[in-house]
């Protein structure tokens, strides 16, 4: 039987590939919600056998709510309110994007292979999944027209960094207050990005980042 954690990590890879191929903004938002949920429950799956402390359970619940519900909801509202045209409008086409995704996965696996001797022992898929998600986040930010896809790319980058964090050795539970801080910053960041998006849309009648190019030297 496949361990649950491996299954979740496979879902992470899958969500990355689907996000690169998707051409609808709503679809992207749903994928991000799915990825948020997967990433939030992953620590529980990794910890099987150790038992989970109450504090960490509380933290994971809050994280699930923020990553799986609050942030996608903010994105959902933004897409509803802001996007006139619902397509993603890529700079780099979908087929080329999928191909780039594969290259990102290969590069991630290569780097993980080289790094693993210097890392603490962890699930073999964790590091490649983290690196792939970070890489794909950057890719989405650069390869799509709409400002809203940049927010989605940023969230994906954060998910990737979170996966990297899961590799780290165990911390004492007093540290959870800090992780709350990180999450809070993220949530506020996404909200503020949403507000700016709203104003951009009101002023320019579009959220294409191509129009945001007047300030330069």
């Amino acid at each position, binding site marked *: 039987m496949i361990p649950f954690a491996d299954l979740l990590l496979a879902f992470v890879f899958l969500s990355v590939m689907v996000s690169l191929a998707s051409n609808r903004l709503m679809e992207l938002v749903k994928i991000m919600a799915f990825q948020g949920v997967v990433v939030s429950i992953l620590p529980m799956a990794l910890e099987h056998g150790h038992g989970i402390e109450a504090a960490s359970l509380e933290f994971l619940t809050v994280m699930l709510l923020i990553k799986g519900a609050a942030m996608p909801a903010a994105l959902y509202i933004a897409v509803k309110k802001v996007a006139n045209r619902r397509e993603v409008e890529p700079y780099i086409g979908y087929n080329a994007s999928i191909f780039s995704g594969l290259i990102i996965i290969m590069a991630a696996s290569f780097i993980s292979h080289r790094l693993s001797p210097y890392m603490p022992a962890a699930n073999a898929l964790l590091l490649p999944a983290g690196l792939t998600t970070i890489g794909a986040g950057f890719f989405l930010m650069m390869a799509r027209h709409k400002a809203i896809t940049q927010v989605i790319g940023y969230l994906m*980058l954060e998910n990737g*960094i979170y996966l990297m964090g899961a590799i780290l050795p165990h911390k004492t539970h007093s540290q959870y207050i800090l992780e709350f801080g990180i999450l809070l910053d993220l949530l506020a*960041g996404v909200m503020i990005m949403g507000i700016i998006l709203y104003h951009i849309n009101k002023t320019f009648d579009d959220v294409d980042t191509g129009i945001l190019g007047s300030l330069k030297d």
Partner: protein
Amino acid sequence: MLEIVILIPLLSGGAAFLLPARPGRANLIAAGLLHLTACIAAVSGFLPAMLPQYFAVTPMGGLVLIITSFLYLMTSIYTVSYMNEIEMHNEPAFNGSMLLFLAAMSMAAIADHIIVLWIAIEATTLTSAPLILLHKSKGALEATWKYVLICSVGIALALLSAFSLILAMSRGGVEVPLTYNCLNGAAASLDPLWLKVSFIFAIVGYGTKMGLAPMHTWLPDAHSEAVSPASALLSGALLNCAFLGVYKTHVLLTSAGIGRFSDHILIVFGLFSILVAGVFILHQNDYKRLLAYSSIENMGIIAFGSGLGGLGAIGAVIHMIHHSLIKSSLFLTSGNILLGYGSKEIKQVKGMIRLLPGTAVAFFSGFTGISGLPPFGLVISELFIILGALRSHHPVAIIIFISGLLLVFSGACRHIIPMTFGSGTSSRDDLLVPDKLPRLLPSYILLAVSVFLTFWMPETIWEMIRQAAALMGGAHA
């Protein structure tokens, strides 16, 4: 309790959102006064931390805290008069954001825990975004978008720097709290490979926020589109907070005995930033962008000096102090110019010395100061940095450094001399808003403090500078 330096602006910032205009302005200044008092008490050691696992006053953090608080107070006095002249769209939101921004910066200055510093620096981005967005003009929207997105991505990478530090601890078998203080003590046992990785992520991540080239692209936009008092804080105070992130990681590498690695990286980033700024200043047609590029140049100088160590490191710390004072004064006077001429274009501004004499004197003095001419402090810091480079045998770096400074100086001269002394056709009647004392006084005070500190440095401040520099390998002459 030390945390009061965060709580004062946090609480008054929350209140500011609810207060109407007039009490809101009083609140802005009162909070500034209270904050400065608390900061002086904190740096003098009267306020022990309630949460010592997260917060502590370090020499460098203390300097950044005092500078931030003093700049904020001056800016708040200016802001009150500035508000009378412009139509502020949503004044309570502006006041509130200013204070929350101060709270976030204070938190960054006293943060000793790695993750707390990260949280504070991300919070500075989020609380200062509304200050740039305020005008809601097309330019302001674009600038805010770039600012929030690029800096958030940068700071996300800085989180990887923290993770690498944790890996360096676990591989080195170090079990101490995750604070810079404790880690400095145990630095020798940290795994050097991950320590180096951590520094690379720190300089890319926090360096983005600090405005080091080539990650600086957001900075000229944000600093020029923000309202002038906000620009003064962004340039004078926020960049220092971001530098703290780089500095603390650099100190860790130095204590671990692999400081040469971070030295070289800092020198390269520093020199590159100076050159990039020089090139862009040469053909600049917006005076606020010119000042923003000058900030990039000065952050480059600070990075360069930190990388040199020895006298250079002392120079870097002194440079940070004087750059904050002079640059914020320049941004405040640029606000007066914008009010008077109604344009940010260099071409539109001619003969300030006739039309806005008070502003012109402050602006030109600030320009002399920022160019590293006496009687302002940058002359000393730049001299220290050049001497430091000579001592550590970096001949090529000295040549690039001095040519970079000359490039910036000549580029800025080309624009600023006509702005101040050029003969324009406009007369006093064309001026939109004349000079006013409350909008001039803060600039003059900031410049005066810089001159004062050049000739008479109080013993306590000098001791803090010396200790801050010693941590990154800075030695006494």
